[in-house]
């Protein structure tokens, strides 16, 4: 009797290691995009706040586009059309560029809200002490406004980390792509998606707990 050839094999401890590595890649691409995107977003937010008409006419519509168009469409379009303008980026590079711009578009509004949260009399009081515009921004607006919009920023950061799963469509083997590969091999979607979900939770939970702890400390 001929032996049956099986194309599938069960989930092994090595697969857990494979998912762990993919989770680190999720963490890496998210951390990079969120960090650069936050710095850019703060700059954009400041421009929107200070730039008045010029920024409203130029920057705001561009940021609106990145906020409104689904991330998956931005990723696919950028990955396929960037080479035409000479930007030959791999899936990771394309993912970082789009996630960074996407983050900055979301953070821009958060940052503008943060600056607006510091009322004019408070800023006048700072200036009346002889502080320059930038000292006022650094020592008064940043800490006060930053705390006011910190929960919103945490929401953006956690959202972007979960959205980084979409970079899988470009072939970058982060957590979701790794899960898809394992599901194809093991045919155990329930188990693998549960493990992948647990990894996402393990990445997000400490951030939201730490954020909650900071907020509690600031509230005192």
């Amino acid at each position, binding site marked *: 009797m001929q032996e049956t050839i099986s194309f599938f094999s069960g989930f092994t401890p090595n697969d857990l290691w494979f998912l762990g590595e993919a989770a680190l890649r999720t963490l890496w691409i998210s951390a990079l995009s969120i960090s650069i995107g936050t710095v850019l977003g703060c700059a954009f937010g400041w421009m929107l706040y200070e730039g008045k008409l010029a920024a409203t006419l130029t920057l705001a519509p561009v940021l609106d586009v990145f906020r409104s168009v689904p991330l998956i469409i931005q990723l696919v379009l950028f990955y396929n059309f960037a080479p035409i303008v000479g930007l030959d980026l791999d899936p990771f590079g394309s993912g970082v560029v789009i996630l960074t711009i996407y983050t900055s578009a979301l953070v821009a509004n958060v940052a503008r809200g943060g600056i607006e949260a510091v009322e004019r*009399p*408070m800023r*006048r*009081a*700072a*200036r*009346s*002490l*002889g*502080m*320059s515009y930038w*000292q006022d921004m650094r*020592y*008064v607006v940043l*800490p*006060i406004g930053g*705390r006011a919009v910190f929960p919103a920023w945490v929401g953006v950061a956690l959202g972007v980390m979960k959205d980084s799963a979409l970079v899988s469509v470009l072939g970058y083997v982060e957590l979701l792509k790794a899960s898809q590969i394992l599901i194809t091999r093991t045919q155990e979607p329930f188990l693998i998606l549960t493990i992948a979900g647990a990894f996402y939770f393990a990445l997000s939970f400490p951030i939201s707990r730490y954020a909650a702890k900071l907020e509690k400390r*600031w509230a*005192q």
Partner: protein
Amino acid sequence: MIEIRGLEKYFGALQVLKGIDLDVEKGEVLSVIGASGSGKSTLLYCINGLEPIQKGTVLVDGTDVHAKTTDINKLRQKLGMVFQQWNSFPHLTALENVALAPKIVKGKAKSEARDIAEKQLRHVGLGDKLNVYPNNLSGGQQQRLAIARALAMEPEYMLFDEATSALDPELVGEVLDTMRLLAEEGMTMICVTHEMGFARDVSDRVAYFHQGVMDEIGPPDQIFGDAKSENTRKFLANVR
């Protein structure tokens, strides 16, 4: 000395100061009284350059506040200001609130800035609140904190913009006492105020503002006892 000549200030089409001429000598305490919207507070904002002016000049020790060449941040170190709302920095303790400007504006060492802050907080009676955050202080204490914060820059002039009008009545006294203390110590002060008792007892001169014009200025006895302007008499009759 503060010298104001022909000062005119507009907000859009609305003229809020209509040609103010005023000198304030070193060591003098001037109270500015008048109805809301008479331009009293705007005068203070124009003196320390927080509001641009449209005509005239404001000189502080001979330096033109509104000249483009003036280093306004440096000049403001001479002009302490206390606002109606105390505007304490909520993320800093009382000590840090007061030490911040000496440290970053004057470049004092951290320890020196803390010493200055501690001294000024004791000066205004908050020596036991050094490490307390502003949201745990009463309105009166926060306003005294604001006074200490301004004093820490070692200003030569203090501008008070209705420093007691946002306070609950029972907290007004402690802030006025602190202002009295400063006056006794010889600080040059311009106090925009609705506290007629303070204006009468502490000031060297009292100025009455009416619809953007300085209607009358003189010693408290004259203003409160024998005002020349009909507007001043009407105003005082209403507030008494």
